[in-house]
């Protein structure tokens, strides 16, 4: 059941499929390390910078350095200079799933016209406030609601979204535990 891709969603699936083939034989090149730095500015206001990462056996750089500021809102008594860190998690999840949808659609020959998502995470802040030890800090539920216009049946669109979740890094990061090591040195 091969479909000839006629769609153009702008995704370079050839490079992706080529990489899959090449890296299966060269697994060392597939080891990537993603990296961000973070610097405290004032109160709960901090700034993150992303520029370099490691992959294909060497240091790599993005074309441009990006910065992201984070803070907490006035409902928390803060200055609200920028969005909260947890909202970045939602940003990452949506970006990963939508990018995946485009790639899968391209691969399946489905032309996308619009893909819009609302990503919501429910949180009981008694957890982060330390007010109730039975409440976790993080999201207790995450919902992603897609509205997609594409040249495909409703079922094929559902399958796109399901497949994108199956291949999504951030979906995996959010749904599965990961060991995290935080170390510190005195500057």
């Amino acid at each position: 059941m091969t479909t000839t891709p006629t769609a153009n969603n702008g995704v370079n699936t050839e490079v992706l499929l080529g990489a899959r083939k090449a890296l299966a034989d060269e697994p060392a090149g597939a080891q990537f390390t993603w990296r961000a730095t973070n610097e405290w500015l004032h109160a709960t206001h901090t700034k993150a910078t992303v520029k370099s990462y490691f992959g294909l056996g060497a240091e790599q750089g993005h074309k441009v350095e990006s910065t992201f500021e984070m803070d907490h809102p006035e409902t928390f008594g803060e200055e609200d200079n920028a969005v909260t860190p947890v909202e970045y998690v939602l940003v990452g999840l949506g970006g990963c799933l939508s990018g995946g949808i485009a790639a899968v659609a391209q691969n399946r020959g489905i032309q996308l016209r619009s893909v819009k998502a609302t990503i919501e995470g429910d949180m009981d802040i008694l957890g982060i406030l330390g007010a109730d030890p039975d409440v976790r800090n993080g999201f207790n539920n995450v919902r992603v609601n897609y509205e997609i216009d594409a040249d495909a049946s409703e079922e094929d669109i559902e399958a796109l979204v399901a497949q994108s979740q199956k291949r999504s890094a951030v979906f995996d990061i959010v749904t599965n535990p990961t060991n995290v090591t935080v170390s510190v040195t005195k500057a």
Partner: protein
Amino acid sequence: MRTSVVVIGAGQTGLAVSYFLSERDIEHVILERGSVGQSWRSERWDSLRLLTPNSQSRLPGHVYDGNDPDGFMTMTEVVGFLDDYARRIAAPVRSGVTVTSVRRRGSAYQVGTDDGTWDADAVVIATGACNTPRIPAVAEGLPDDVVQVTPADYRNPDLLPEGGVLVVGASASGAQIASEVQRSGRQVTLAVGEHVRVPRTYRGRDLMWWMEVTGRLDERYDDVDDIVRARHLPSTQLVGTPERVSLDLNTLTAEGVRLAGRLAAVTNGRAQFSGSLRNVAKLADLKERRLLEFFDEWAVEAGLDGALGPVERYEPTRIEDEPPLSADFAADGIRSVVWATGYLADHSFVDIDVLDRKGQLKHDGGVVTASPGLYRIGLPVLRRRKSTFIHGAGDDARDITEHLAGYLASVAVDEAECAVG
């Protein structure tokens, strides 16, 4: 000892190879560590019946001839079927001989066993695809007092300790075991990863009938879109019972099984489950639907639409609003774990550089190109989607034997030329 071809393993694939070798008058022996059909004798649970109907118990020159073509054989019946076959084709089986090494000697092979050494021109490895139960690394974190079993050593619920049971994996083995353990009165939590949902019967016909008539199972390995994926596909959620019941997550939920996501970690006495349950269930529902649509289209094209029962669609998999993300072995009373997480083929006895970085044999449709004269049969989608089914052994064995015969002829020519030169 010397022979032309050593076949390792007397399951359905080794016997089918023997059938075609004999047909070509190629001298050979089958070395079998146990008896004919040993895997069916010693590595299956008590209640297991084939999930392929009797009509698919077919090997070259040997078909099921009973009066219940739609029934499913018990393990005793499968062993009897294979024993009959071995006798009928006068397979040269040496029982109780375990192969411990396969080495190259010039252009030929030396096969080491616990009962002497065989020299041969060619070797066919027919040792099965399910040698070692695959146990995920997270098992290391399990509390010491939790009993662990795999489908290869599980026999029946009574051998598990009283208390809750965590079954990991929802393919044929996991779903069947979860169901019977739950019915024995133990609370089962089933950790569900990617799985393949199918009905037992569809429009009045067995699922396996559909898979066969539509040509789905004949699809060749070199035609399959994504062979890596095809070879790693989990087995379908099927069970063979006289009542021909379907076995899916909804029937398990109705029996009282608690569904959770894939087992992601075990730390501090707690199992952590992935939050992806809803998506794996959705994927399985969508794929089942696509398969049924494919059957329906085929039925119309084949002019059978009117002769079959009405088109059916099934209720989507029911997932509770907030499936469990963790379970505490002690507090929740989970006393045992069944690892129904698949199997790996074992090639550790092959002392030739033909294994990949994961220890799996590199081959092209069963032909080990890096070592001429070495063959493998009975791996998932080895040459066709049906390669690991009983009724799939014949076509693969015919192809492999044909290639092997060509190889033997070419070596014979080489030797003759050497002798002349």
